[in-house]
């Protein structure tokens, strides 16, 4: 049901979540459930937002929840965003912690493995 917005793969120890398209009030809950089902036992999580063309506050809420969950379990998480774009803008507007954001998927993966 959420396949058009979210897909999963592995990168080293990390569970890699690819998001794409528009994430808003209408689909954020379903996408959130799909992601949590995969990340709830993960040792590290990478969320790739570079293909996201729109992200609203419902999407921010979803990311906030996942970050909180990983932090509580003491596991690392990184959000990969482009240099520009809708996702970066929204996250910056919401003042997400800069240590969570990265523009380089490979380096983030290497950091998590290390």
């Amino acid at each position: 049901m959420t396949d058009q917005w979210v897909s999963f793969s592995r990168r080293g120890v990390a569970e890699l979540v690819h998001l794409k398209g528009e994430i808003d009030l209408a689909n954020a809950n379903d996408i959130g459930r799909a992601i949590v089902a995969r990340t709830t036992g993960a040792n590290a999580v990478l969320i790739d937002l570079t293909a996201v063309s729109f992200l609203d506050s419902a999407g921010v809420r979803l990311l906030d929840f996942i970050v909180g969950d990983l932090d509580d379990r003491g596991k690392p998480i990184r959000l990969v965003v482009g240099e520009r774009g809708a996702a970066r803008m929204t996250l910056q507007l919401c003042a997400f912690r800069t240590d969570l954001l990265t523009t380089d998927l490979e380096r983030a993966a290497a950091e998590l493995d290390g």
Partner: protein
Amino acid sequence: MSESGGPDVTSELRLPWDDDPEDLYEHAPCGYLTTLPDGTIVRVNETFLTWTGYARTDLVGHRRFRDLLAVGDRMYYETVYAPLLMMQSEVHEIALEVVGQDGRRLPTLVNSVLERGPGESPRIIRTMVLNATERRSYERELLTARRAAESSEQRVRVLQQIVADLAAAPTEAEVAEAVVRAPEPGFEAASSSIYLVDVERDQLVAVASTDPTTGNWDDMPRSSQRAVAEVARRGDLHVVATVDEAREHFPDLAETMTRSGRSTVVLLPLTTGPVEEPDGVTVLGVLAFSFREERVLDDAELTVIRLLGQQAGQALDRARLYDDARRREEQAGFLARTTRSLDEEHRLLQRARRLVERVVPEIADWASVRLQVGPAGLLESAGGPPPEAALLAGRIAEATSTAGPVWAADGDGLGCTVLPLTARGRVLGTLALRMAPDRRGIEAERLFLIDLADRAGLALENARLYEQERAIARTLQRSLLAADVPGGDPRFAVESYYQAAAQDLEVGGDWFDAFLITPNRLAVVVGDVVGRGIEAATTMGQLRSAIRALASGEHGPARLIEQLDRFCEREEAARMATVVYAEIDLLHGEMTYTCAGHLPPLLHEPAGSPQYLLQARSAPIGSRAGDRRRTEQKVRLASGSRLLLYTDGLVERRGRPIDRGFEVLAREYARRRDAPLKGLTAGLADTMVGRDHADDVCLLCITLGTEERLERSIGADPLQIALLRADLRGWLAGHSVDTDCLNAVLLACSEAVANAIEHGYRDDPFGVVDVTATVSEDAVEVRVTDRGTWRGTGAGFTRGRGLQLIEEAMDEVLFDRGDGTTVIMRRQRGGEL
């Protein structure tokens, strides 16, 4: 006296008829008795004494005549003879049996005369006794003959009745029932049983008995040593006269005879074929009947019994033919009905389902179809309980690998027959059946099942091919429809929709296309090819390509359609396709269109109501009867116009005139004037035809130019926000708004609308949110208005974040709370965040 000088004996000789009276009396050819009125014998002649063996002294004065009679005759003497004699003084030809001295009985006829003395008083009785031995045995023969005739007549009557019953018995079971009833009335048998030959199983089967407590009821092979099997093999009547005789030849029979108290058994083969040729006789069964006492059957009875065997055999033969014919007829009927029923379904799954539902319960109590199609295969079952899975799997594997049927056998623990479903020499899958065991007609049954599997295999293979073709046609159609419709151009936006027919029909030949002929000339087309399925899909693809190739931007739509007319001289399947084709000059906002047999486009300009474009009409492509003079019409399109092209599936609905369909379409289209373009065509199709429609529907909607002012109304549904965003994004791009500003406006607008839906219309699913956007040289302004009731504004963290985002993204934000809430947001163009 003698001249010859011989002794004269004349005086010595008596004439032969000149008997001595005394000698005549004594040696007369009959007995004489003289008795006193009380019967005491006073005189008797020698003849009587010789016949009876008495001495004269035994009788005279010592015995009365009645003392010499048999016991029964003494009664007769006292009650009939004596009174009659007293009354009539004489009696004649009274039949009495005289008992001799050695006890032998002598049948006699007696005449008596009573002599009376003075005063009429009885004096003596003279009695003549005639020897009637010969006469009596003759009478007895007569009697026996009559009795024999009577019993023979009785037998004939019984036999006639049985023959009549046999003739009226249409089935083997009824023939058996009639035959088994014959021996009791016909031959006074105590009981009888009938066994029938089952040729296919090479067995003799007991099917009926008048006394099931006797006999041995197990089926026996025809090669058995038992008496019944022996007689069936020999084909001739066999009478086991005594238990001893049975013991000698057939110990099994002797045992049952002793147990059931039978002394004689007749084993009669039921035969058909010419009697005179012993080898030509076919034994169809054996009738066994038995007697409590030892019974000797005479030749006449044996003849009748043999006749019964032949009559019964012929009746059985005929009934078997009838049974076979009826079974064949039933099977043929079942096959015909099943084939017809399968033909009614086109899809593979439905056909497989129908097959098992036909088979259960009519011929089986459980059935399943397994097909090796697709990655998972297909399995449909009916009836129950299902058989043991592992055993069944083995049998299915066998039938699949050998491509031959595996028949159920007695005691195989499964009772299922598995038939391979083949088509064109390939095993497509299997049909497994559990049927009630049938004692007869196994060979015919097998042929029937093979026929059934053949037909089912073909029907399922055709459904599979249909399914495959359908999938190919759909894929082909989808790939053609989805291909590169231009987007991201601020001068126009295209929205299309294709909905396949709801029923399981093949794909239709509806299509749409939009492409840029030159950088400033857009072509849009919607067409409909005659026919369905893969051919229609292919033709559609060819027409679509032909139009793309022929569109030059120099000759115009009418010329293009003329070229299509020529094209279908080569491509016959394209004939009678309908097309609406338009070329839009994006620089000058002018459209040139033509309609070849297609429904008119519907144009909605920014002001006014929608209009059907009814000019430039001509006949379908390649039409022979229609007007093929192709014309074209130019029409100016104001910025913000929306043009709708569609196929007939959108307006045609059973039971509704087409003009009514046009009216409804125009009204619905007008009602959506302010709806976002994205989702417009799908929404129209949904409203116009619903989900359950018989035809394909194809729509193409284009918006031209950029509205100065964007006005949209959307329902209180989160899904609508994305549709609005698509319009807004296109509109902002059309006005060359920079990316940062564009993203910020999109975000703020989405959040404002989400707020309105989540808070303003929390309790009102039918609420409407109005969005108005204007753009100036230096800024974008968006107003989002709802008429809902806000509760707990800003209370929740989550909406708080939404509001925070609006504040962060926009330069100025105003809330106007009156009847509802209006959010007014403004963002500078080209500015930094």
